[in-house]
């Protein structure tokens, strides 16, 4: 039985490709890319922090699109609900990773673990919004999928706010290096290579994990259904002899 988004073989190949590209990223980030003139080796955390943040955006974007597709009557399918849930889980994971890695970087470079500036606060809000969304998914009842899809669309409003927070407000966090207003990357060639590679590697990892998580979700639903069927069958089997007995007595 194949209940994944991708074919079984494609999924496995993707897993290996993601692993290999992460190994290459390790070499690029630790050996090929030079240390930063000001920050030294602490700057290398960028090759994890930036792609993690990118994945958070991507994952929540996929959740939003899948939720919209679920809400649209013509495309409504349990598939979209599962994609939305699986992607949101990955988004929460990578938002958490972004926050932790950023904090580890902030201590040696800024001098503090945390700053109450607009970028950091809106990112923390993003994390808790989607933790809330995941909690909402766990609440059963009629219309659960619809409710969650609407919540996912509302939560997505914070994604552009996080991204543009460094432009809209004055923050301690630096502005975008690549996607800045001038759209010119202010980064040295080999560092840029490691950064772009990290985005590629993390994206592969995301697609792989999304497929796996989706598969798990589908298997879970399948198991629930089978358990329900078995429970009904058991109850029927229990009721059957009782009825026969009752019939014999009358």
């Amino acid at each position, binding site marked *: 039985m194949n209940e994944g988004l991708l074919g079984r073989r494609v999924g496995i190949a993707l897993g290996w490709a993601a692993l290999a590209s992460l190994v290459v990223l390790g070499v690029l980030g630790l050996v090929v890319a030079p240390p930063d003139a000001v920050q030294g080796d602490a700057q290398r955390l960028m090759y994890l922090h930036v792609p993690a943040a990118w994945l958070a955006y991507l994952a929540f974007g996929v959740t939003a699109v899948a939720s919209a597709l679920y809400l649209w009557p013509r495309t409504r399918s349990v598939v979209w609900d599962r994609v939305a849930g699986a992607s949101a889980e990955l988004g929460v994971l990578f938002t958490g990773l972004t926050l932790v890695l950023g904090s580890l970087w902030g201590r040696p470079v800024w001098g503090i673990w945390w700053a109450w500036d607009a970028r950091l606060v809106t990112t923390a809000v993003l994390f808790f919004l989607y933790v809330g969304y995941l909690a909402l998914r766990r609440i059963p009842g009629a219309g659960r999928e619809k409710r969650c899809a609407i919540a996912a669309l509302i939560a997505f409003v914070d994604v552009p706010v996080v991204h543009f927070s460094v432009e809209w407000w004055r923050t301690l966090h630096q502005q975008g290096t690549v996607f800045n207003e001038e759209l010119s990357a202010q980064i*040295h060639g080999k560092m840029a290579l490691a950064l772009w590679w990290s985005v590629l590697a993390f994206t592969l990892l995301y697609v792989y994990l999304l497929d796996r998580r989706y598969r798990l979700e589908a298997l879970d639903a399948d198991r629930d259904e089978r358990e329900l069927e078995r429970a009904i069958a058991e109850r029927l089997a229990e009721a059957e002899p009782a009825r026969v007995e009752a019939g014999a007595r009358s």
Partner: protein
Amino acid sequence: MKGRAIGAAAVCAVAVVAIVVLGVVLSKNVVYFRTVSEAVEERAGGGGDGRLRLAGEVVPGSITETARGVRFEVTDGEATADVIHRGDPPDLFKEGAPVVCEGRWSESDVFASDRILIKHGSEYEPPDVDSGEKASGDKASA
């Protein structure tokens, strides 16, 4: 159904109030720091009594060590302020470094700082070593 409608309206009302309150609070506090000229101007106008963050560049040649920390000047190109910092400055603190100082104005209009943060820019390049390629000439155009 009527109860639900009232509930939904209540939730919306609370949300609107929360957004307005947040907006008012944020518009005042969302600026993480003040530039030196903003802070100096505010001080000259009689304000700036509370705690604030002052951002600028450390003026080269202005750093002197004191018994309790360092004394230096910080500038944003337009205005300059004297800063007396208590405690050890961070590792990346040096001449020309972009800093954010936390503290308050003393009576003599010297900024008494008790925390220095380094505000890093969005530019990344390797250290300029003689054997390596020129740092500024090899930037990606992506």
